[in-house]
């Protein structure tokens, strides 16, 4: 942090006299962070609201990105509509966020999709509780297969209808979901203390059966 502040100083002073007559160039000015704007009248949002009843709960634009919060029960219908009717053929990213204290539900599951025609991206977000499972979108976009497995592995969110919901980065039998906020950063003892019958003392997982991960 400190060297960052120190390095620009000589250049700043050098550039300052030049830029004084005009307005300050934006990189010397205070940064202007983006603000949240209501996006309920966005064409994709209105089309989705009209096509799938009661699906859209809220829509918000931030830094040029539209986030549509939808009802988890309408997720598949909404995603299918967005893909087939609105051209969002490409699922870029799928992940989750953990908010342990939140009342509406613990997890955000977010879908970030792309339309090739006009290079537009939108985000669909659902809010789910710890116990509820999420319908899998593998039937809509094939690419979501591994992404959902990763979310299951890291957050413990169960995806209904997923063809092969196994842990992907950690091994089967790992006790916990590391990206939950209540999982300690320094890690847990994955050896004898957790599952002495599977893991020998002080060692990692034994590769006894094939396809353990």
């Amino acid at each position, binding site marked *: 942090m400190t060297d960052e502040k120190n390095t620009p100083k000589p250049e700043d002073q050098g550039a300052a006299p030049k830029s004084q007559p005009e307005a300050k160039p934006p990189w*010397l000015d205070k940064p202007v*962070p983006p603000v949240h704007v209501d996006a309920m009248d966005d064409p994709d949002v209105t089309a989705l609201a009209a096509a799938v009843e009661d699906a859209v709960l809220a829509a918000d634009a931030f830094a040029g990105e539209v986030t549509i919060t939808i009802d988890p029960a309408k997720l598949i219908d909404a995603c299918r509509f967005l893909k087939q009717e609105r051209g969002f053929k490409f699922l870029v990213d799928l992940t989750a966020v953990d908010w342990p204290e939140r009342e509406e539900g613990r997890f955000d599951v977010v879908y970030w999709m792309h339309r090739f025609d006009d290079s537009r991206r939108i985000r669909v977000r659902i809010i789910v509780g710890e116990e509820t499972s999420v319908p899998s979108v593998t039937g809509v976009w094939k690419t979501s297969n591994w992404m959902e497995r990763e979310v299951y592995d890291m957050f413990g969110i169960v995806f209904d209808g997923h063809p092969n919901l196994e842990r992907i980065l950690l091994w089967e039998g790992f006790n916990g979901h590391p990206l939950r906020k209540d999982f300690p950063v320094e890690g847990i003892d994955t050896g004898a203390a957790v599952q002495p019958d599977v893991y020998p003392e002080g060692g990692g997982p034994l590769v006894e059966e094939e*396809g353990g991960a």
Partner: protein
Amino acid sequence: MGGPLEPLFDVEEMELSFGPQHPSTHGVLRVMLKLDGEKIMDAKPIIGYLHRGTEKLFETEPFPQCIPHTDRLDYVASATNNQGFVVTMEKLLGITIPPRAAYIRMILAELGRISSHLVWLATHAIDLGAITPFFYNFREREEILDLFEAYCGARLTLNTMRIGGVPFELPDGWVDRCSDFIDRFPAHVDEYEQLLTENRIWKRRTVGVGVISAEEAIEMGLTGPPLRGSGVKWDIRKVFPYDHYDEIDFEIPVGTNGDTYDRYLVRLQEMRQSARIVRQCLDKLPDGPVIAKVPKVLRAPEGMVYASVEAPKGELGYFIVTTPKGTKPYRCHVRPPSFINLQALPEMVQGLLVADLVAVIGTLDIVLGEIDR
């Protein structure tokens, strides 16, 4: 495509664990193969051997201190990883960077792309039995790493971008040295092409191997050269220009057949285009500061933001969630191109021979550092 293949005769199916300690898996990838003789009936990639919990670590670090972690995702092209993170942070904080910083970033990122493609070509060719290109590729890569070393002191994990710009001014003589290299480089690409492009063995090993159609590639979420090799003209540098790529003139090379050979041609052309970009950046390099005036402690507004860059492997995106006035990411998710590209491996190798699996793993150009994170 789809589902495991049925054997022709009543034969015993063999299971083979390919990797994780196999030189052609480029790290610690393990593939469980189901074989009928030498034919691959089904392949199941098993990953996670290099999982270090990077996304969890991001949550514990103030924003600027996250940058060194990004180096360790795709460690053969760390400049683009840094770029992805700082571009996302600048979008979140509303920072405009000085033009000189943007140009230096583009130079570093494109040199990184060339060096990443050189590593890919060297290892891909050596996997398929062509040992000579390795020596040529690493000769040029050495020069690029020397340039990085002269700029920031590091050769691989550069940590060379900051939120708001780049940390250092270019050292004396660096521009001339880089310019000298980049003018010579296209002739070196010709050398690689002489060794491989019309080589009969090379073509027999790559043409028609690991074919994926454009529709299938989009459905599987492929990005980068695997997508462009199937003929989809799509590049983040053109679609969502970051830094100052919109001021640079370059083309997006695409293939037609979506096979290993086309992806080879695409990457070779990309090296030429990257050299062209570096040339233009060096010519146009503006004067001025190399870093914007940023607050000492970065406090982000509440929200979620995603931005991506075109990494050598494909679209590298960062998804950052922040709390009001947060100084650390509440959640930082990386969209690693290799992870998503590797998912297409089972479909691409079904029905091929074991030796072709090596070609397809090579052509996907995966780096386990960013797959496992």
